[in-house]
Structures are given as structure tokens and as C-alpha cells.
């Protein structure tokens, strides 16, 4: 090895070095490009192209023969169901994300509080809802909410509460889909917050304790500022995923009763696949874009900030 290096040094090096550098650079970038080519093809053909194609689809009529401009949107704005879907999507996403974040935060603290030896076991149990495929676990909830055999109603009857129409009445059905979503998503928040809680240095808490901070002040002035970035990123992630949720609503209520629990994704499916009106369905799903775009911009900013800090 050493010999080679010396020989190279001895040779008229500037020219040779530059030439070899250039060929190496050339070879390297070609190789790099070839290695990323499948990724670029996949993303451009199956993600970016369909994304723009749906913009085009949204301007066609039902049989996809004729260009009707913004006709689909005009039609949607006049339908009452559309506004119900907008309302329900917002209620669903905001409530579910808020409670997922809150429960995740509380549970993460409790897990962090107990001796390190037992933490693994508790964390393992509490993450189970996130591991089960949502389509499968929603079936279990559907059975727990069954109108005539609901196991929850059996327990409630034991304490003298009347039978609850979990998925049969607008208010309760909205509550049920949100509850299942919280059940499924809170463990994700818990695991993220727990990871970030562990990275808060103990000295900060010791210093706060010496200054006489109570538990509330410790959370407000030490924990929250230290976790701010993770909380922001996790919440924004969850906003995207919850807003675009399909499985839970589809299986639990299929949008019922009377379209009161439809969110954008399930309504787009109902119109586009079951109703056969692909352009109108595509227009419905396009309404998710603004909120997703805002969330994505903030996530990107936070992730870049994080990258610069470390």
C-alpha cells in the first residue's frame, strides 16, 4: 500500500491526479445515478405521475370522455353530503390527533416513571394496538360494538346503563370511529415521546428540583421545551395519517349512519370505486391535498432544523 502511495507522489502528479480524479468522479456519479434509477422511476411513475393525473381526472365527466373544467367541484359544493364529509373529516382528525397526543404523552410519562427493569414489559404491552393490522383490530371493535351482542353494553348493563347504539347513531358512531383511531394511534405517540423523554438529560431535572420547581413547572419548563421538536413532528405525521384514514371508518361504519361518519378517503372510495365515478372520487380526494401540504411543509422544516442542530 505504502509503496503505491509513494510512487504516485513521485510521478508528475498534478495532471495525473486531476485526470484520475475526473474519471473517478465521472464513474462515481454514473454509478450513483444507476443505483438511484429504480427509485426515481418508481417515484415518478407510480407516485408523482398519478398525483398529477388525478388533477387531470378531476376535470373530466363521469365517462371520462369530456372535459368539464371545474364542473365536478361545482357539483360537490352544492351537495350537502360533501359539507358533512368536510365537517366530519375535520372533527375526526382534530379530536383523534389531540387525544392520541395527550394519551401518548401521559402514558409515556408513566412508563418513564417506573423502574427501568419493568419498562420493556409495559412498553411491549402498550404497543400491541399499533402492531395489529388496523383492518383486523377494527373487526374486533366492530364485534365489541355489535348492535345486539355488544360486550360493552353487557358490562354497562351490569352497572345499570342503557344499551348504547355504538355505530347506529350519529353522535355515538362518530365517537366510536374516533375512539378506535385513538386506540390504534396513541401507542405510536407513546413510543415516540418515550424515546425523546429518555434523551432529556437528568441534570436539567436536578437543577429544576434544586430551584424548587414542582412537577408541573418541571413539565412546562423542562420537558416540553426539550421535546418540542418531536411533539411537532409526531403530531404533524399523525395529522396526515389520520386525515387520510380509510381502514377504520370503512370497516367500522362504512360511512354510515346516513353518511355521517364518512371522511374524504371513504367517501372518495364510495363514489369512485363503488359508484364508478372515478373523476368525482378523484376530486373528493384532492381536498385532502391542502391540509397534507401544510403539514408536510412544517414537517420538512422541523426535520431540517433537527438535522442542522445535530
Amino acid at each position, binding site marked *: *500500500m505504502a509503496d503505491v502511495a509513494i510512487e504516485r507522489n513521485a510521478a508528475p502528479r498534478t495532471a495525473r491526479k486531476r485526470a484520475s480524479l475526473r474519471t473517478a468522479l465521472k464513474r462515481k*456519479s454514473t*454509478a*450513483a445515478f444507476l*443505483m*438511484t434509477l*429504480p*427509485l426515481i422511476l418508481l*417515484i415518478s411513475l*407510480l407516485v408523482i405521475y398519478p*398525483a398529477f*393525473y*388525478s388533477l387531470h*381526472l378531476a376535470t373530466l365527466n363521469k365517462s371520462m370522455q369530456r372535459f368539464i373544467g371545474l364542473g365536478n367541484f361545482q357539483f360537490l359544493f352544492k351537495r350537502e353530503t360533501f359539507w358533512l364529509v368536510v365537517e366530519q373529516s375535520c372533527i375526526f382528525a382534530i379530536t383523534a390527533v389531540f387525544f392520541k397526543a395527550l*394519551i401518548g404523552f*401521559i*402514558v409515556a410519562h*408513566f*412508563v418513564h416513571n417506573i423502574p427501568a427493569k419493568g419498562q*420493556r414489559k*409495559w412498553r411491549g*404491552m*402498550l*404497543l*400491541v*394496538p399499533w402492531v*395489529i*393490522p388496523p*383492518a*383486523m*383490530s377494527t*373487526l374486533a*371493535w366492530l*364485534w365489541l360494538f*355489535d348492535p345486539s*351482542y355488544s*360486550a360493552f353494553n353487557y358490562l354497562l348493563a351490569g352497572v345499570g346503563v342503557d344499551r348504547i347504539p355504538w355505530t347506529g347513531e350519529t353522535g355515538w358512531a362518530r365517537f366510536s370511529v374516533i375512539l378506535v383511531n385513538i*386506540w390504534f394511534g396513541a401507542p405510536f405517540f407513546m*413510543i*415516540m415521546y418515550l*424515546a425523546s423523554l429518555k434523551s432529556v438529560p437528568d441534570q436539567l431535572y436536578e437543577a429544576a428540583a*434544586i430551584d424548587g420547581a414542582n412537577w408541573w413547572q418541571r413539565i412546562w419548563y423542562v420537558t416540553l421545551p426539550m421535546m418540542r421538536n*418531536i411533539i411537532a413532528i409526531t403530531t404533524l*405525521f399523525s395529522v*396526515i395519517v389520520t*386525515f*387520510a*384514514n*380509510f381502514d377504520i371508518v*370503512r*370497516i367500522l361504519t362504512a360511512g354510515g349512519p346516513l353518511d355521517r361518519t364518512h371522511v374524504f378517503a371513504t367517501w*372518495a372510495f364510495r363514489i369512485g*370505486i363503488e359508484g364508478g365515478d372515478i373523476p368525482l372520487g378523484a376530486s373528493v*380526494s*384532492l381536498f*385532502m*391535498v391542502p391540509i397534507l401540504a401544510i403539514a408536510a411543509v412544517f*414537517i*420538512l422544516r422541523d*426535520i431540517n432544523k433537527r438535522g442542522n442542530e445535530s
Partner: protein
Amino acid sequence: MTSTVVIDKAAPTRPVKLRSMSRDRTWALRWSYFFLTLFAVFALVPPLYMVITSLKTSAEISAATNPWWVYHPTLSNYVELLTSNQFLTFFRNSALVSIFVVTITMLISVPAAFALARMRFWGSATLATGVFLTYLIPETLLFLPLFKMFVAFGDLTGIQLINKWYVLLVIYPTLTVPFCTWIMIGYFASIPKELDEAAIIDGASWFQTLTRIFIPVALPGLIAATIFAFTVSWAQFLYPLVFTTSTDQLVLPVGIVTTLIKGDVFAWGQIMTGALLGAAPPLIIYAFLMDYYIAGLTAGATKG
């Protein structure tokens, strides 16, 4: 501040205060366990109820007994499902799709992540950000244009991909590749530069650096990415619901939802058994590889 501490240390009240602090601590611990138990019950009730129902006969399910207890446990639901050709077809389709998708994902994302993490080239930074953004695009936005595209593709070339399980091999990578590439970029970037410089000096090619240095060193990340790709493709519900309809082409989640729910109330024993068997592979992987699973989960936001 220091003076307070010193006075505190010298004061005779110190032991008393210590005891009260430790008592606080004990109570905090008790409350923690109490609430953790509450949350664990909340988390585990649906899966446990799946197990309870799966052990019951239809007669017991329809009887007006306590639904939370099994009076006559039976494995007949399991036997029935595991000997039913239809269910085994669903299982086979799911397994094939997941295994192929994991392979395809790794073949695409590992070289791409290596190139993006180590070989700076024109547009590589933009591409890395773009990969991350793609991960944020939900499938519910793309299923209609994709469906239309595959119909048009079939009309154009005569190759009918709709309603064949292998169409999912083309579509699922859009869900798995961006995230796997993103976390592999993070893992690869954390490998010290000296390591691959040493390999290059020893005469290794780029390919050898990847297979001999990067893949072995970043193995935990690779396992985490593999688990992610597997669980995503096993759990995916929307795409198979849209793209496959014949019963012999369905994957497990869609198969259970569309064929077992027949409006017959008393099929719930079988539905719960099917759901449990469908949840089993991810749960088993999770039970054995929990640390990798969690590493993959948290990597998305903590790396990069």
C-alpha cells in the same frame, strides 16, 4: 443557590425531608402502575376479546351468557379455517405478496440509500428530500388515479393486471420504498467515513464497499426497514380492496372482511379467528424483534 444547599445539608431536618420525598416517590410509583394497568387494559381488550370469541362455538356466541367468558372452549373455528382452501389461499397470497414486496423494496432502497448517503451527485440532496416527501403522500390520494392508470395500461397493452394478486407487487413498493430509503440514508450516513475510505484504499469497488462494509455495519437498520416493509405490506387494506375482487386473488385482510362477513351474526367466531390469524405474523415478528421494530418506528423522525 449553593448556600441554600449547604444549609439544607447541615440542617437536622434533612432525614425527615428525605423520607417524605421517598414517600412521594412511592406514591408516584403506585399511581404510575395504576394508570399503566388501566391503559394496558384499554390496549389489550380488543385482542383479548378476539381470542375469547375465537374459542367459542356459534351456539355459545348467540346465547345470552357472559360474553367475556368462555364456558365451552373449542378449537373448531381454527380447525375449520386452517382446513378451508379459501382461507389458505388468502394466507398464501398475503405471504407471497409480503415476501416479494420486501425483496423488491430492499433491492431498490438499499442501493439508492447508499448512493444518496455517500456518493454526492447532482440533485442528490433534492432527491433525498423528495423521497421523504413521497413518504408523506397517503395511499388514499393515489388509489383512484392508479386504478385508472392500470385499467388504461391493460387496454393499451392487453396485459390485464387488475384483479391479479401480483399487481400489488407493483403498487406496494410506493408505500414501502420511500420510508425504507429514508431510514437507510440515516443509518448509512451515521457510518464513519474512515471506514469506507479504508475500503477504497484497499482497492474495494463501490459495490464491494456496499456489500462488505455498509450492509453488515448497518444491519440493525436493515432489519428495521425489512420489518417495516413486511408489516406495511401485510396490513395494507385499501389497495387490495380496490385492485382485487376474485376470491382466489384476495389477500388476508380483504379476504376476511369481504368473504367472512355475510350478514350472518353467528359467523363472528370465524371472523375473530381469521382476524387473529391475520394479526399473528406481525405480532410474532414484534414479539421476537421488538427492539428493531421500535428502532424502525422512531427512526423516521429522529434520524436525518
